[in-house]
């Protein structure tokens, strides 16, 4: 596949004339998708998709387009040629772009992930069906190769491929009472999966107790890493990019304008080196291994796309155009799992949050729901599952004044999202113990 992309890129670059330059981006995946409901298969299939994006540049003018590829060089090269001709025809009608910035220093790279997925495609599917026996399992399996490439007329070539699987499932007890679990990685280990099934089963037993309903108010809560990931996902929506900061739309505006701080134990980094996403972006810039976003509670660096770099006169750090973290990591704390319930004492153990949004963006106040296994805890012991509750709370309290502790253990989570294509995002996050967490409905 790498060779095919480079061949197409060479074809395009070979058809450039005069001062024309081209940037080519390639994306592909071969994925198996199986959806389960009530411990049976709801939908099962395979998707093979390849696409090529071409940007034609002459001076400060540029135009871009993308096409799907069929894999036949004769057909694909003609479609690429047609795209090139169309972009060439558009260029005279486009004004010069003052913020155009592409990599000029050649920084080629290759990352070839080893395919360690089971050869028999049904192996994991069968294991999931087996786990569902006698239970109400609903979930989703996705697996296969993901490929990305970059090439430009300066001779830079970058390649990335990875092979991952993800089983993301829930055991349902009744109604909305369920335990959600994920098992994802590069190499399927049936023992790890079985252990996760057993652990989920144990939590399911705790859900069988009569559910408790609490009144709105402020509660001491423990947010498990999967719940923290929902908060990070929302914060990542405009929280770390330079453009949002410069246009005063960042939800962290109180940090950038007034010097507001989070708890000194809070450190967030974009850790590309430890993630699974490609370390190059669509304009050809390489990403640094790490970008520090919040250091000891203080706002640190932004994610800076090439376009923002040019617009605001700073250096780019290889962020994509949407300036969002892809491999976010939060520093560990000192709370240990074995003392967690004791530390929580009386309050709520929240495994998952759901459907977060800003209720006051400038104050970084977020609202959302508890979901799946959420428990009422008294004197360090789980008492009952909790009916879903809405929270509405400011980040400055959650990760600031009301933060009691951060766990020493962190979960490494592969992003299971498959919008348009399978995600290569990931996160490494701890759990958080928080006082006076506001529940409203």
């Amino acid at each position, binding site marked *: 596949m790498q060779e095919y992309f480079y061949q197409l890129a060479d074809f395009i670059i070979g058809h450039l004339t005069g001062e024309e330059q081209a940037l080519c981006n390639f994306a592909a995946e071969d*994925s198996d*998708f199986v959806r389960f*409901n009530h411990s*049976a*298969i*709801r939908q*099962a*299939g*395979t998707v*093979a*998709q*390849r*696409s090529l994006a071409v*940007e034609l540049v002459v001076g400060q003018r540029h135009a*871009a387009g*993308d096409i*799907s590829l*069929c*894999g*036949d060089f004769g*057909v694909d090269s003609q*479609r690429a040629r047609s*795209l090139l001709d169309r*972009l060439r025809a*558009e260029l005279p*009608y*486009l*004004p010069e*772009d003052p*913020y155009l910035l592409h990599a000029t220093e050649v920084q080629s790279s290759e990352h070839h992930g080893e395919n360690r997925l089971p050869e028999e495609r*049904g192996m994991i*599917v069968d294991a999931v069906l087996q786990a569902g026996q006698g239970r109400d399992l*609903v*979930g*989703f399996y*996705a697996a296969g190769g993901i490929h990305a490439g970059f090439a430009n007329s300066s001779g830079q070539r970058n390649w990335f491929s990875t092979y991952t699987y993800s089983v*993301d499932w829930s055991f*349902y007890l009744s109604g*909305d009472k369920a335990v959600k679990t994920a098992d994802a990685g590069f190499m399927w280990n049936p023992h790890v999966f079985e252990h996760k099934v057993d652990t989920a089963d144990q939590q399911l037993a705790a859900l069988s107790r009569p559910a408790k309903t609490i009144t709105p108010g402020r509660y001491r809560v423990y947010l498990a890493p999967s719940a923290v990931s929902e908060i990070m996902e929302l914060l990542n929506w405009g929280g770390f990019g330079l453009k949002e900061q410069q246009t*005063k*739309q960042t939800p962290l505006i*109180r940090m950038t304008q007034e010097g507001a701080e989070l708890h000194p134990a809070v450190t967030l980094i974009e850790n590309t080196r430890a993630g699974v996403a490609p370390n190059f972006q669509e304009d050809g810039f390489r990403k640094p291994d790490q970008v520090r976003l919040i250091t000891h509670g203080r706002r640190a660096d932004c994610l800076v796309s090439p376009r923002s770099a040019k617009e605001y006169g700073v250096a780019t750090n290889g962020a994509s155009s949407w300036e969002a973290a892809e491999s976010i990591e939060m520093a560990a704390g000192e709370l240990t799992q074995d003392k967690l319930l004791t530390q929580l004492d009386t309050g709520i153990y929240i495994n998952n949050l*759901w*459907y977060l*949004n*800003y*209720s006051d*963006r*400038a104050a970084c*106040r977020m*609202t959302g*729901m508890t*979901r799946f296994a959420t428990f009422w805890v008294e004197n360090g012991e789980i008492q009952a599952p909790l009916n*879903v509750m*809405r929270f509405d709370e400011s980040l400055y309290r959650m990760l600031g004044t009301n933060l009691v502790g951060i766990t020493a253990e962190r979960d490494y989570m592969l992003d299971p999202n*498959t*919008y*348009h294509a*399978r995600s290569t995002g990931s996160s490494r996050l701890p759990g958080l113990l928080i006082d006076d967490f506001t529940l409203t*409905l």
Partner: protein
Amino acid sequence: MEQPHEQIAERFRRIMPSVGFCSLRIVRERSESLAVRQDVLQPVSNGDDLGVMVTVIHQGGCGYAGTSDLTEAGLRRALEHAREWAQRSAACSVTDFSQVGFAHPQDEYETPVAIAWEAVSLADKIALLQQESARLKTDERIVDWEASLWHTQSDTLSITNGDAHIRQCCSYIVPMLSVTANAGTETHTRTFGGRGYCRQGGLEVLDQTGFYEAAPRLSTEAVQLLSAPDCPAGRMDVLLAPDQMMLQIHESIGHPLELDRILGDERNYAGTSFVRPDMFGTYQYGSELLNITFDPSRPEQYASYQFDDDGQPAQKEYLIRNGRLLRGLGGVVSQARLGLPGVANARATTWNRPTIDRMANLNLEPGQSAFSSMVGAIERGVYMKTNCSWSIDDSRNKFQFGCEWGQLIEDGKLTTVVKKPNYRGVSATFWRNLARVGNLDSYEVLGTPFCGKGEPNQVIRVGHAAPACVFSDVEVFGGEQE
């Protein structure tokens, strides 16, 4: 209509296997996105995406394969994959797919277009956006502003081994304006209905939706919000504009009525529903003023079509009439699984995803109340426009929504502008407090390009038309108190 679709279809017919059911859905989507931000043209992007989805039902199992490899070898591979998945799942599927009665119609549908996207030159479209962008920057406190247009032309051909042949060509326009004002840590953005004024059609949509008149109003309102007091807190009436009604309908009627959610398919991701199968026909979802239709027949609305992606003919149906729940949002597969009537709403984002139950056009039918009479009848309340925050639980019950702009209603009059208006409630009771439904004067045809659901995930176009509506006794509140 171009020929490549027919050539691909013919290629497929040659290798169509002998199975119970087999279909091929060929989708080509060509798109262009133009945006001018702070009077600078943003990178212009074009897309031309072509691929196919093969579905096979064999021995009661169902399998699919999406591919952008349209050679005969590629189609053959896709068929093999789909057939393999059908076989593999035959003994362990949620239903016997061979019992689902798929239709095999032959017909065509095309969006009526008055001013084709291509009929206006690229330079003229850019000039138009430059002009609207400049009209947004009216004050030094405006720190960001943007005008954009997004056009997509989709061309779909579906065939089956039962000689179905459905060709549907749709033209989608998404006009957008956004203006952001700032003072200190106070930042407010006003938009042209989010992306709510998305429609099918050509560039005539810009006239129809008031795009050319919106910029000065939006920039004035953004600046106005900087000095506005916070929305008050308490229980009061709310008057929701169509560009908030759209979201209210979407989240707390549309999603809960999806039959695949009721069947549990979405429980691991998008969630379940508080609606149970036994509630259809008897449950009082809202007040008697509530009339909700699934209506794919409005040619200008964003998610109109003649057939869904499972080939079922689409027609207008009442889902809720006089407040009573009648019918859910489920295609032919969900209808067979549940034994309930549904609608033709099995849809896929594009060629690389299988069909699932989606909303399409879900509308609140207009009532009798003039806008002025609705305001006049409110003693204490808030008028809210344009959604900017949405959150609801996985059963689609406990919601909290926020709007860009609010205005107090006191003693029957619109008075002080307020910032950060939010409200929360519970779907199962909220719609019973629907007190007034606007007439055609406040009725607007809106929608969104971004409804997310499904595993694998799919984002799809939906339409929502509604008038302004009044709800009584709602919990309202504002922003963070210092």
